[in-house]
């Protein structure tokens, strides 16, 4: 067992039970994070990124079902853990920053109350020590007046400040892995950069493992060591950041990167034709095949086996199959 590996997600299949049937979202998702490694996960809305992240901490909604797969944290399968071990994991090792800071903080509780509650359950400290810990975390998150923030209700803070509170929460104690689910998507444009810089700085300083889920391709490119590209519940391409971004192999990745407007060049991208598939009746084989310009017969039958095209750069596409 490689001692370096913090998190290993293997062959994850997740679905949601709804009145319209079972929505099979994740189909064999895999992910690896090493100590201190920074990972990016990119993909469209609805591709299953948040579902994957929530599965890691087992906080899926009650109609979510993990059908198959393993999520190993330092060798232990999270899906088989007993409640106490799982709670320890959530309190000490892994933390998560949610996408919408407004809905992530309970509006009826003051920020301080929430933080104290979490610290008390995690570390069993006295009130004063717990408060010290909370204030320190708020300071680390570059909040200008930690005492005041501590005493405020979430609606009294701006969007950027709320997200910084969430970041502060994520930093309490010595975490080993931080999951950031689109941390800047819901913030004002002027604040996005600030919050992202803060987050990346803290991650580098503390040398924690970091999963950065985002649709901001540029931000991901600059800040992660390796990146995973997700489409419709599958990881279709992954590898070292520079290699994936400068040499996208999968047709979807190519189109995705094309969509980012560039300073050079004269045209806007035409977009990707078609839509994200219906998870109740997903396409067979490779789920991208209805929208792919290079579709072949094999693509409709089974999901392509991943191939290492260059070192540290993998793709799951029939175009690169070894004959």
């Amino acid at each position, binding site marked *: 067992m490689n001692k370096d590996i913090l998190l290993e997600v293997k062959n994850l299949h997740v679905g949601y039970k709804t009145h319209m049937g079972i929505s099979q979202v994740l189909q064999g998702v895999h992910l690896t994070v090493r100590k201190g490694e920074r990972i990016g996960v990119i993909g469209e809305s609805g591709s299953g990124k948040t579902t994957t992240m*929530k599965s890691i*901490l087992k*906080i899926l*909604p*009650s109609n979510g079902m993990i059908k198959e797969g393993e999520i190993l944290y330092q060798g232990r399968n999270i899906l088989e853990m007993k409640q106490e071990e799982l*709670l*320890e*994991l*959530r*309190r*000490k090792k892994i*933390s*998560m920053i*949610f996408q*919408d800071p407004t*809905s*992530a*903080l*309970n*509006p*009826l509780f*003051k920020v301080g109350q*929430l933080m104290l*509650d*979490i610290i008390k*359950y*995690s570390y069993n400290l006295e009130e004063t020590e717990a408060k010290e810990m909370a204030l320190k975390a708020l300071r680390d998150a570059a909040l200008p007046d930690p005492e*005041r923030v501590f005493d*405020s*209700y979430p*609606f*009294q*803070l701006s969007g950027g400040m709320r997200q910084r509170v*969430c970041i502060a*929460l994520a930093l309490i104690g010595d975490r080993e892995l931080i999951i950031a689910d689109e941390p800047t998507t819901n913030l004002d444009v002027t604040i996005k950069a600030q919050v992202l810089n803060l987050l990346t700085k803290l991650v580098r300083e503390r040398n924690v493992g970091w999963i950065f889920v985002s649709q901001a391709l540029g931000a991901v490119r600059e800040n992660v060591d390796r990146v995973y590209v997700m489409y419709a519940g599958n990881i279709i391409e992954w590898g070292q950041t520079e290699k994936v971004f400068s040499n996208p192999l999968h047709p979807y990745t190519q189109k995705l990167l094309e969509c980012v407007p560039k300073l050079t060049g004269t045209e806007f991208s035409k977009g990707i034709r078609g839509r994200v598939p219906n998870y109740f009746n997903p396409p067979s084989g490779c789920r991208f095949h209805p929208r792919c310009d290079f579709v072949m017969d094999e693509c409709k039958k089974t999901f392509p086996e991943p191939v290492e095209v260059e070192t540290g750069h993998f793709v799951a596409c029939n175009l690169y199959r070894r004959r």
Partner: protein
Amino acid sequence: MFKYILVIDIKSKIVRCVFKMRAIWKYVGKRVLYVIPTLIGLSILIFILSRVLPGDPALMAAGPNAPKWVVEQIRHQLRLDKPLWQQYYYWLVDLFHGDLGYSIYTKRSVTVDVVEYLPASLQLIFLAALFEIGGALALGIISGRYAYKLPDNMVRVLAYIGISVPSFVWGLLFQLIFAAIIPLFPSHGMYSYGTIPPPRVTGFSLIDSLIAGQFDTFVDILWHMVLPAFALSLGAMAQDARIIRAGMVDTMQKDHVSLVRAYGIPERTIFSKYILKPSLVPAVTVMGMDIASLLGNAFMVEMIFQWPGFSRYGINVMLNKDINGIVAVVLVVGIIFAIANIIVDVVVAYLDPRIGRRSA
């Protein structure tokens, strides 16, 4: 477990209460000022209707065989010979002196009637409110906790039945089943035959009996209150149970619940602290309104159970076309309703920190 959390909650609430006092009084003052014109409008409306609509109140009061001079005397006594606006003006002046006029039905001052009968109704409504809150909380929480599973579905079906059956039907049913067929409870009245009512101190027979040390009277009164209070509370209980359940199901899916779960707070605490409280805040508004409207439903229930309360008095004055009584009843109900609404608003403003605060 719930009680434990409630006690701690109450202690911290008392501390915070002191600090909020000043803001609350200002808020209450504003609301009272707003409500007064409405009540005045209400009194004008019902006053005018009562003087304009019925055929000839004086004639009805005197009876068909009364000689003309008696009718004229009554007409003068009721001020019906004066122009309408003058009648209202004198009525308003009397009101400020606490005089609600003369009741043709009870042949005495309406004010005396109100003071005598109102406490009994308030008692009944209070007990009904207790049943209602307790029942709604219990059913709503069970329903929410086990959402979409068997307990939830059972409660939902019961709730529909509870809402659909009118309160007077419940009253009749309970009288039938629990007083006649299975003689568990008395079928009407406030005292059993032969019980001597306690001397009047506050007007609330329950309290008065305790003050007088007549514990068996106290129990007797309570025993008489159970059926009508329960019949009164069922409709509101069912309605509020649904609202509580809806609030809980709504809250359980929110991100802030996921967050606390992600940080390792145990499920039980999540449920009682982070799901329960936010779900109850919207429920309080509706529950307050439903409790206030118990006053309306009491009219039917008091009649069925012959409960000597304000609502039964109201029905009687209405059936006897006692115009002063009718106006007074409507006005008193309006005032109580308004007070109840203000109390509800204050409670909601207190519980939800978002109301009334400016963002930083």
